[in-house]
């Protein structure tokens, strides 16, 4: 830092300079007396300047720091040093120190013009330095911004690579490649047809074939095109002949196919699947579908076809069972019992087979079932001891079911992460049937039944004050969970029917994260007593009651609230727990914390958690009050 060295050298020179005072101004205005006087004046000002001197040292230090530090770690302090320097000079200028000094020295022998030049030069230098500093700050901000953008690019790239990797590991056959290849030409024809243009004016705009990538892209775009009062048969008339089962259940084309199926009948299992996909896309639940059919919004109902549907059940239920039967029939060649329900996940069906004490979880793409190309065994584990469940490996896309089972890899010893047992006692519940069966509860399909009521039973003996409107809105939701015995259990929860899908999603998260739930039984079992239910560590929802110690109706009274594991998640107010036997310890299994995936899921779905309340912490409590209690 040459300029700093110059300063030092000059100061040194000045401090040593003791030559005779020569007055270059021939007509000196200063007499000896005046000079003496000036000396006295400046002598007085020395104190004032001494103060400045201390401050000056800080300034010098700050400026020196600018030059001496350049490593990354010290950049912040360099910046701070520059800022300090400028602040100090700013302060000097702002406080008009220089004019003060000028005033102090005014009556001395110093040439005022020289002093002015000096202070002007100082001001110029300082102004320029400030400009430089501003640029430095801007530059640093720019560098940080560039860095953040770079990080975002890296993150996007990693996410994208992981997505591809994930899909390859656990593919959803038919979702991407197959659909992307087939439908374009058909789609272009369909979009170009005048009928479609007239009936579905948004179609061409929403579904540009050139931008078509397949998969769920279509669902979103196309669902928008079907207003609630769409006459599906009309759509069917337009597009039915074009599609003829060539498209999978996942795209718009599946929805168009859904329309086409009404004409074709259920000839193929994959068409049923597509139809079901259409139902599910349009109607969240079976009750929605039923209501829509009854109110004539839904015009197509396979349930009325007695030949195809001898059960006479409503459409949605019929479809579910039809798919189930179809799947069961298809895999009889494996001589393996089907365990549990068939679950639909995206366009694939997931079902579980048990063979020689090994459980095979299998994803079968219904669209590809036609040519029997895609069958994914994605999880295989031993049933010997579910608590030390062993993942055996995975295998993708064998040609047939039999081949899939043959190719399933051999066991590998990898411990699972099932919850630790905090409550070793198995739950006592008279509703649980066949409890003496050793393997009961070791698979989802073999879950221990904690509650198996009808809706009427679940709402029996409810308070007579409960309005009809509220009762009608309550849905009995079947839920599966892992209890504290490490086994799968099945229970039931009563909530407002509009919250049913939320509840199902949350319980799925509980299963995924192996979050243990003690039991879930409608509170009628406890004579509608919240205390009794809590004492039994029961998870519950609807209960027509007032809030504790008040007359205001609780959100439970409308089925808008759920209490989970009350003993692990008690209500805590003024140091008292409710239930009194409850204890909130964050590390105990079954305990809810702010960062727990279950709490996060509830929040994501718009629920409020009582654990974050200020006046009291009701850790078991979640609520999502809906505005109107009438149906959709």
């Amino acid at each position, binding site marked *: 830092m*040459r*300029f700093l060295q*110059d300063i030092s050298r*000059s*100061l040194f020179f*000045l401090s040593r300079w003791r030559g005779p*005072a020569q007055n*270059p*101004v021939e007509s000196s205005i200063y007499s000896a007396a005046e000079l003496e006087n*000036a*000396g006295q004046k*400046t002598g007085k000002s*020395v104190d004032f*300047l001494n103060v*400045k*001197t201390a*401050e*000056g*040292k800080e*300034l010098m230090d700050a400026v020196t720091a*600018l*030059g001496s530090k*350049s*490593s*990354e770690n010290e*950049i912040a302090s360099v910046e701070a040093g520059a800022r300090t320097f400028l602040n100090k000079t700013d302060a*000097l200028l702002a406080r008009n120190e220089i004019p003060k*000094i000028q005033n102090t*020295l005014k009556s*001395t*022998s*110093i040439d005022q013009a*020289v*002093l002015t*030049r000096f202070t002007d*030069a*100082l001001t110029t*230098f300082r102004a*320029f*330095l400030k400009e430089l*500093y501003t640029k*430095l700050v801007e530059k*640093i901000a720019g*560098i*940080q911004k560039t*860095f953040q953008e770079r*990080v975002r690019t*890296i993150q996007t790239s990693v996410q994208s*690579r*992981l997505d591809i*990797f994930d899909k390859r*590991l656990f593919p959803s056959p038919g979702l991407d490649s197959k659909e992307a290849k087939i439908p374009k030409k058909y789609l272009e024809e369909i979009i170009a047809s005048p009928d479609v243009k007239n009936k579905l004016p948004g179609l061409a705009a929403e579904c540009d074939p050139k931008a078509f990538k397949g998969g769920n892209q279509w669902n979103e775009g196309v669902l928008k095109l079907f207003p609630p009062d769409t006459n599906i048969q009309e759509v069917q008339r337009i597009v039915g002949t074009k599609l003829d089962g060539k498209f999978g259940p996942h795209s718009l084309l599946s929805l168009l196919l859904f329309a086409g199926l009404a004409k074709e009948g259920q000839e193929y299992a994959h068409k049923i699947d597509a139809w079901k996909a259409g139902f599910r896309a349009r109607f969240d639940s079976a009750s929605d579908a039923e209501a829509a059919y009854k109110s004539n919004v839904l015009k197509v109902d396979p349930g009325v076809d007695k030949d195809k549907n001898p059960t006479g059940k409503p459409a949605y239920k019929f479809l579910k069972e039809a798919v189930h039967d179809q799947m069961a029939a298809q895999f009889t060649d494996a001589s393996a019992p089907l365990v549990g329900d068939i679950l639909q996940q995206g366009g694939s069906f997931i079902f579980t087979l048990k063979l020689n004490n090994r459980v095979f979880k299998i994803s079968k793409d219904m669209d590809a079932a036609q040519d029997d190309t895609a069958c994914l065994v994605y*999880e295989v584990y031993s049933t010997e001891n579910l608590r030390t469940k062993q*993942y055996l*490996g*995975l295998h993708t896309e064998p040609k047939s079911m039999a081949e899939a089972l043959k190719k399933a890899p051999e066991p590998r010893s*990898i411990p699972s*992460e099932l919850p630790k047992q905090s409550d070793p006692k198995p739950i006592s519940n008279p509703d649980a049937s066949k409890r003496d069966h050793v393997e009961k509860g070791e698979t989802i399909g073999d879950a221990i039944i904690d509650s198996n009521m009808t809706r009427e039973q679940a709402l029996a003996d409810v308070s007579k004050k409960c309005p009809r409107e509220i009762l009608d809105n309550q849905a009995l939701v079947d839920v599966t969970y892992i209890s504290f015995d490490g086994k799968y259990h099945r229970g039931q929860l009563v909530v407002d029917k509009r919250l049913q899908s939320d509840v199902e999603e949350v319980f799925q998260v509980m299963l995924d994260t192996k979050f243990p739930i003690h039991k879930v039984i409608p509170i009628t079992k406890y004579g509608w007593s919240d205390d009794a239910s809590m004492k039994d560590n029961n998870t519950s929802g609807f209960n027509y009651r007032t809030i504790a110690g008040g007359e205001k109706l609780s959100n439970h009274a409308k089925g808008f609230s759920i209490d989970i594991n009350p003993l692990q998640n008690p209500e805590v107010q003024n140091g008292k727990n409710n239930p009194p036997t409850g204890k909130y310890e964050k590390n105990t299994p079954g305990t809810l914390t702010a*960062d727990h995936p279950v709490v*996060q899921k509830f929040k994501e779905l718009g629920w409020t958690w009582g654990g974050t309340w200020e006046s009291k912490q009701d850790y078991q409590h979640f609520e999502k009050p809906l505005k109107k209690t009438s149906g959709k």
Partner: protein
Amino acid sequence: MVQLARLQTAQVDLVALIENSVSLSAEQKAYWKNKLPVLSREQQGELARIFLDEAAQMEQAKGQQKQSLVTAVQDFVVDAETAYNREKQQLWHGAEEMVKHSEVQEQEALLHLLQPL
């Protein structure tokens, strides 16, 4: 290179790689950690490579950021020095003139005045 060698000898701690990733949410980290047991060694290697690439890119980005910051500060210092050099003639000439034309006591006062600068 060291990491690559370690990867080849399957000594890379995949859990640590996932934990250290700046691209994944906590939920995604849990997802991938849970998936590890069902991955073959080759698949684990593939996964590790994604995270090692990420780490290398991050290292590079940080290096560039550091270099840019150092350059920015150095530029600032050089510019400040240049500005000083431009002004110093005026500055110090004025100062020297003032000192020359002052009496001893005044010189002392001036030294004090100049010192802060």
